[in-house]
């Protein structure tokens, strides 16, 4: 617990948003709040579940196989890329390795949850971390940063996303071609709008300017130069490094 001390002593101005030791809960109320808050976001994600179902169908996966993948992997971009590679007869080990690379950003997201999740039991923390997706991770971080003590929010918002993701996958495999145009309903913009909203909540004033500019700039360059989703990792690390360098 010594590390918790240094966390609270940090000379960051927003001390009110720091978790107090031992006060993060893991309750049904937290699950429920996450579930309800996560619902509209999960609907947006479900649009991509349908797309995944269609692509899984084209790749020759059965309904059961596609649903099993959505239920156990729960990672949109990784599933899409994995199934596409699989359809191109790429060897299994290569597909799995690629999936790991696509998912590397989760390492950073999990690390960012630590100040709150280290106060939960390992079972609660490592159980609910399975339900991490980009969208509900962002919702959860926004919630916890604004002072919520509900550690079960990730699980609740992840559960609703997980359920709709599986249902949408099945829908996509069986009836997909009619539904598979998320752009038509503006669903492709849900993730952007969500992240913009969260950025407003995470903004800490002048303190944020330099790390955020670094993150945005490096992400843009990386997006142009590197394949896949490396830009998220490289950009986010650049932001963190800028803060670390300027830290006194």
């Amino acid at each position, binding site marked *: 617990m010594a590390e918790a001390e240094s966390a609270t002593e940090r000379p960051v101005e927003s001390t009110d948003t720091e978790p107090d030791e031992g006060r993060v809960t893991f309750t049904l109320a937290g699950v429920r709040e996450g579930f309800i808050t996560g619902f509209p976001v999960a609907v947006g994600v479900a649009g991509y579940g349908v797309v995944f179902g269609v692509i899984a169908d084209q790749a020759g996966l059965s309904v059961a196989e596609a649903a099993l993948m959505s239920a156990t992997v729960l990672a949109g971009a990784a599933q899409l890329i994995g199934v596409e590679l699989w359809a191109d007869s790429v060897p299994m080990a290569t597909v799995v390795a690629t999936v790991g690379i696509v998912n590397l950003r989760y390492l950073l997201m*999990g690390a960012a949850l630590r100040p709150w999740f280290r106060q939960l039991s390992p079972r609660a923390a490592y159980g609910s971390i399975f339900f991490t997706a980009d969208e509900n991770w962002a919702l959860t971080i926004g919630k916890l940063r604004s002072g919520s003590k509900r550690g079960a929010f990730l699980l609740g918002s992840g559960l609703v996303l997980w359920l709709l993701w599986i249902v949408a996958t099945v829908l996509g495999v069986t009836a997909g071609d009619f539904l598979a145009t998320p752009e038509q309903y503006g669903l492709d913009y849900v993730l952007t709008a969500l992240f913009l909203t969260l950025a407003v909540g995470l903004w800490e004033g002048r303190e944020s300017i330099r790390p955020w500019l670094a993150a945005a700039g490096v992400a843009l360059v990386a997006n142009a130069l590197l394949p896949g989703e490396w830009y998220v990792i490289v950009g986010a690390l650049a932001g963190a490094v800028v803060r670390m360098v300027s830290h006194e």
Partner: protein
Amino acid sequence: MSNALALDPTVVALIVGMAAVTYATKAGGLWLIGRIDLSERAEAGLDVLPGAVVVAFVAPALADGGVPEWVAAGATVAVAHKTGSLLLSLGVGVGTVLAARSVV
């Protein structure tokens, strides 16, 4: 061949592999960062990580977009800033992008 409930052992093996590596990345960050003793400097970096991840996500998405996406981004940020309501800012963002795309 396409029996809806078919479970090809090779495909199941692929799914198990994908699920395992995905869980490893999700749990790995939490686990790893709990194992090392972080300096104050590293804590400060960790502190800025959520915002940095969000910005790194969104910047290329906006750069790849066009006028409708930018207008909608402005509307989303304005509503989020004014109301703090996620539902409202999502609705306005998606509604604006749809409306703007039909115009542009």
